[in-house]
């Protein structure tokens, strides 16, 4: 009698499960850290303890960074395992891009960033898509354009246009470090980071562009880029 073969999960499935489990496990201690920092902040408010306030602000900033990393892991695992339920609605792209830019305002001011937005007022830039995914991808591309950039000023130009098939294309043009040619083929791979990106910013998950590609694929959308090492990058999303 033959022994039934035991089914092993593929390495990719194990990684996905691990990302999902680990990110969920990390959210509870993160929430504790966030809430207690907020409680301390409100206890110290108005008591003239500026030095403590500065320290607490640093903890808040670290909590925020941790939450972004955990959410990236969680969102990636949810897209990979089909846990994410797509909800398509009518989206006014100018509003969506505007809200994402507002969210990054403080960071823009700190880094002296210049943004230029083209053709956003046109009323026909309405798409039927998933606002959470699309919004997150827009945010990730803008964030990367600024993170991997040391030009003065750092610039991101966002443009909207229609292609021949009447699909809307959103382009993000930056003056950042660009992607070296040998790394371009792997830039959407899970955990991959370009060599010049690792030198400039050693910390990074290598998940954001992977998430962008995978999640847009679920929506029937697409992302691509052209780039020159040291000469900036243009990411384009077809919605």
């Amino acid at each position, binding site marked *: 009698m033959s022994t039934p073969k035991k089914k092993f999960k593929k390495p990719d499935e194990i990684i996905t499960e691990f990302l999902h489990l680990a990110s*969920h496990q990390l*959210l*509870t201690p*993160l*929430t*504790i850290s*966030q*809430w*207690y920092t*907020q*409680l301390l902040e*409100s206890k110290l408010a108005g008591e003239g303890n500026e030095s403590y306030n500065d320290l607490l602000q640093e903890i808040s900033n670290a909590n925020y960074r941790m*939450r972004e990393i*955990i959410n990236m892991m*969680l969102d990636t695992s*949810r897209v990979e395992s089909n*846990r*994410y*339920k797509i909800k398509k609605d009518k989206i006014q792209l100018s509003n969506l891009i505007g809200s994402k830019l507002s969210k990054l305002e403080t960071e823009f001011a700190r880094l002296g960033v210049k943004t230029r937005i083209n053709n956003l007022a046109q009323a026909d830039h309405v798409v039927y898509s998933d606002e959470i995914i699309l919004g997150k991808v827009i945010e990730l591309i803008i964030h990367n354009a600024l993170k991997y950039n040391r030009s003065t000023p750092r610039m991101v130009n966002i443009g909207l246009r229609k292609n021949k098939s009447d699909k809307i294309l959103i382009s993000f043009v930056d003056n950042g470090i660009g992607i070296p040619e040998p790394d371009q083929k792997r830039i959407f791979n899970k955990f991959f980071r370009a060599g010049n990106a690792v030198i400039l910013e050693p910390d990074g998950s290598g998940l954001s562009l992977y998430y962008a590609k995978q999640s847009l694929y679920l929506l029937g959308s697409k992302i691509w880029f052209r780039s020159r090492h040291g000469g900036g990058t243009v990411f384009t999303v077809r919605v």
Partner: protein
Amino acid sequence: MDDKAKSILIVEDEKPLINALAEKLRAENYTVYRAGNGEEGLKEAHEKKPDLILLDIKMPHKGGVEFMQELRDGNDVWAKSVKVIILTNLKPDEPIISGLSGTDPAYYLLKAEWTISDIVEKIREVLNS
């Protein structure tokens, strides 16, 4: 009735989280009851009949989904209509959440995305709705 005289039951198994919420809510003059899991939560809920329940989902012994089903299933009129805010780090489309019926409870907050002050603000808004 002034909402600050109202009572809130927190059903949550993480002690630091329940302590933080209880402290903040008491500072806002709410009466706070607490339970460490769904089983204790049901007992406390029927006994104290709070104005609002803050409910975690993943808890030992009895989770938030079972808590909701048992709370709403009985004949107690209060239990059928008491306002419940789910406070969890599980996204609403996680399989475990599918046990909650469509629009009940109407309020769903992701813990890590909300500041403790904003949660108190939301509680005030829900109590006044």
